[in-house]
């Protein structure tokens, strides 16, 4: 018995010591805190791969939407790793949006185990920057030969990414570089639209007749097919009602993004138009996921972003895309974007910055765009956009580029609390669309409620 006890203790101790060897020479880096990404400090490390080769180990992470993207990003990481002698890279695919990518990331930052470079959505940039979690890399960028300059990237996101919260001016700080951009479009079930005898929205758009009136006509015609067929479908997160407010000449914030203007006449008009569509029963009920019925061939037009393209390439009906319809103020879309940022606690800011420049290189962005999910964020090379237009289906990729040209960049809210703002706005819009709250009451009180989240 005594022997077995000693043997068990020996076994456990030996296994614990084995943990020191990173698996006996496997090509992995420690998954520890940012200190653990160091390899050549000379104070405590002795047998890491990075140390053995003199390399700097960097961990980086994105939020891919599917296995194809994971494979692609892993391949890009391997490619950069093989071309870059001084650095060893470890790619960590984060969870999807529904598996709370940001929550895991925040927990890791709090625990000191977050990667050196990671991707976050544009709406989170201000929150992360104001809390000192990400590095202002302007100084590093100025000393780098690899940086193509602020002008090389999509201007909307860059204006927000270079905002200095102390001086309240853009063009001073640099909190990250956009990985890619995206925008909304209506995905069309051409078979249903043709069956309903409705005009083709792409032709209407080409003729300058794609507006709220013709949108309603098409939706009514498709909905009249009866049964489970729905005219249109949109989902219930902030951007979806937002485009109707934008296109009506309203929006979420005033010009310097320090106050709400959701209660303005224009914003309320946009919401009124949207609520009218639902109250006439033309759409998939607000709050239901409209993607499954669209893919099942039961929805005429579905509003979603470029990211839905890979999944829709398996649709067994004729489909394409069209820009959002023009409201009183035109077709004002969103520019969705996320950025690679540097962990404020990284010990290798220069290498981390160079990694970001490599990850946002035009060739790398072309590889990602080819997958279909996103649009390149580099604007310094027209070939990049031309390549994107060639990645079909959908045939009408130009709709996304048109959408970007007249769009509002999403977040961040430097002078307010975006999660709090969103938590108040979303249920209020749901109540209006469901008819549980009058537009008058909404218009009278919503700005006061939302303005409490600023300052």
């Amino acid at each position, binding site marked *: 018995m005594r022997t077995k006890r000693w043997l068990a203790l020996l076994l456990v101790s030996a296994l614990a010591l084995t*943990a020191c*060897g990173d698996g006996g020479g496997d090509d992995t880096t420690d998954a520890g805190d940012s200190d653990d990404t160091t390899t050549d400090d000379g104070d405590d490390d002795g047998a890491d791969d990075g140390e053995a080769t003199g390399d700097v180990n960097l961990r980086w992470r994105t939020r891919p939407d599917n296995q194809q993207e994971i494979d692609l990003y892993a391949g890009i990481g391997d490619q950069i790793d093989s071309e870059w002698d001084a650095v060893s890279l470890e790619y960590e695919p984060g969870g999807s949006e529904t598996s709370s990518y940001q929550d895991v990331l*925040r927990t890791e930052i709090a625990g000191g185990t977050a990667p050196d470079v990671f991707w976050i959505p544009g709406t989170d940039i201000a929150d992360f920057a104001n809390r000192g979690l990400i590095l202002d890399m302007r100084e590093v960028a100025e000393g780098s030969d690899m940086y193509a300059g602020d002008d090389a990237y999509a201007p909307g996101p860059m204006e927000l990414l270079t905002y200095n919260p102390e001086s309240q001016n853009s063009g001073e700080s640099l909190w990250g570089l956009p990985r890619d951009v995206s925008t909304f479009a209506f995905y069309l079930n051409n078979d249903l639209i043709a069956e309903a005898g409705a005009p083709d929205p792409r032709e209407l758009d080409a003729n300058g007749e794609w507006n709220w009136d013709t949108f309603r006509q098409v939706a009514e015609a498709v909905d009249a097919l009866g049964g489970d067929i729905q005219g249109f479908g949109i989902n219930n997160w902030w951007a979806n009602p937002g485009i109707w407010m934008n296109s009506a000449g309203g929006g979420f914030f005033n010009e310097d993004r320090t106050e709400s203007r959701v209660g303005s006449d224009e914003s309320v008009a946009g919401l009124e138009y949207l609520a009218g569509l639902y109250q006439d029963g033309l759409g998939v009920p607000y709050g239901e996921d409209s993607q499954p019925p669209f893919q099942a061939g039961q929805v005429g037009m579905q509003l979603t972003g470029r990211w839905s393209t890979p999944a829709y390439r398996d649709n067994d009906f004729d489909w394409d895309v069209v820009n959002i319809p023009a409201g009183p103020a035109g077709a004002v879309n969103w520019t969705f974007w996320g950025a690679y940022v540097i962990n404020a606690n990284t010990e290798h800011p220069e290498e981390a910055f160079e990694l970001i420049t490599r990850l946002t290189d035009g060739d790398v962005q072309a590889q990602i765009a080819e997958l279909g999910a996103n649009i390149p964020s580099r604007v310094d090379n027209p070939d990049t956009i031309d390549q994107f237009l060639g990645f079909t289906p959908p045939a009408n990729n130009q709709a996304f580029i048109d959408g970007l040209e007249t769009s509002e960049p999403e977040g961040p809210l430097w002078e307010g609390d975006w999660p709090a703002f969103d938590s108040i706005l979303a249920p209020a819009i749901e109540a209006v669309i469901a008819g549980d709250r009058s537009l008058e009451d909404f218009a009278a009180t919503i700005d006061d409620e939302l303005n409490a989240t600023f300052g």
Partner: protein
Amino acid sequence: MTTLTAVWDRRPRWRLPRAFDAPRWLTIVLCWRVVHLLAMAGALGWALTAPTLEGPARIAALAASAIVLLLDVVGLVGLARGRAVGRSYSLAADYLTFLGAVLFLLHVNRVFVGLDALGETFSRGVPFLLLAVLAWIATGLEERGGVFERIARVGRSVGLLAIGATLLAVGLLPGLATFLVRTAQPLQLGLVVVGLASAYLAWRTFQPDVAQHLGATNQTTRTLDGLLFASPNLLGFAAFFAGPLLFSLFVSLTAWDAFGEPEFLGLDNYVNILALNVGIASGGQSASEVLAAGYSEWFRIGNVVLGARDVLFWRSIRNIVFFTAFALPLSTIPALFLATLLNSKAPGIKVFRAIYFVPSIAGVVAVALIWRQLFDSTIGWLNYLISIVVTWLNAIPGLSITDPRIQWLSDADIALFSLVIVFSWMFIGYNAVLFLAGLQGVDNTLHEAAMLDGANRWQRFRNITLPALKPTTFFVVASTGILTLQLFGENVVLFPTTTPIGAGPQNSTLTPVVYLYEQGFRRFSFGYASAVAWVLFILIFAFTLVQFRRQREDAEG
């Protein structure tokens, strides 16, 4: 054949030397205690002032050094007075120092981080480990004698060699080399010295001659033995349960975003959560005109407006009370009747028992995902089946029923009931198995006697079965009730796109746990989220207490 274990068992026994007799040893321990106490006072000061320590790390360092310092003080005073209690506290301080030094050494040598990598490479050793398991099974043949005895001996040796091969395959040698290289640093060597010294001091002080010299009773010795035996569990409990629990209580009194220093607020978080205000609205007055500043309307009855500072919290409480009011009976009462059906000796009844139990072992996420598809108002199966039934009924002359096309997940009046359905579906089977166990313990002679007295089936169920099931019913109601009050996973999966996530249309499925998750992980308000968690804890505690009281009154009555 000589096996490796036989050689091991015949090795000469070696014990740690007792360098000094008990009186001299106690003098050394006394001096050590003074040194240790000063070191702990220094550690406490460092934990208070070190700029590199922040938030929970500072609090953990403060708590650990304060506890050991306290043990040092009591131990020092006790030993100075020649009391046995001094030995006990001194032992505890040295034992904790030993453990702390070992754990800190493993931490600075990055062993805990490396365990991730070990997880990736462990598969290399699996074939050898399987061989070791087979060899260990073979050692069980020893009792059969003859050739089996020889097989068992060979198995024992093969097993040891296989374990060694396992360790080599997963990387023992490079791991050992790395550990030794990393340990050859001043800090690590210091930790080794402190750890070994503390271990020896604890061991020597634990010896019977020291206990005898201080007049320790058998009771004291037995207590120390028991505490030592239970210490791994106790320390684990303290580190991973009690510690975080107390830490969350502290955090609930602060404003803290999990990254910087907490700002102490006292009871402000609790006041903001719980504060209510009542106003009387007349002549079309709005809520803001009749409620005190900082309060928003929660609900109104006639002219009476009830306001709260945190309306969303109270909304979550209302939701969870409604949810519990429906989900608790729906997951217990049908379970009781299901159990009575399953409590028969019909052929194949065990298969049915297993089938009904399956939902409770399925993961919440998987179950909720399936239900999300079933609930889809456009292409979901539930509405499809309802449409078929409606069509079928409308075929009856004179009937004209409108297809309801229920919006299970997007109608604020229905979403909570969708959650009730999912929850009840998941837990009916589990509760039925619990009731079944209770039913099988009911004395059958009572039923026979009642039958002789002319009692029908319902009378027997009501007057014999139900009273006999009271302990089971108490457990089922209490445990299910706690689960309903902690509802979280189902919401998040069924309502992934609402804001806050899981809150459902117009916050109709917002529950306290969803709310505290939103506050903590989305809004970085960990202080406020902790306060919500403690309020919920009190609610659950009160619910359980009521159940206990009722159970006790029933037992006594």
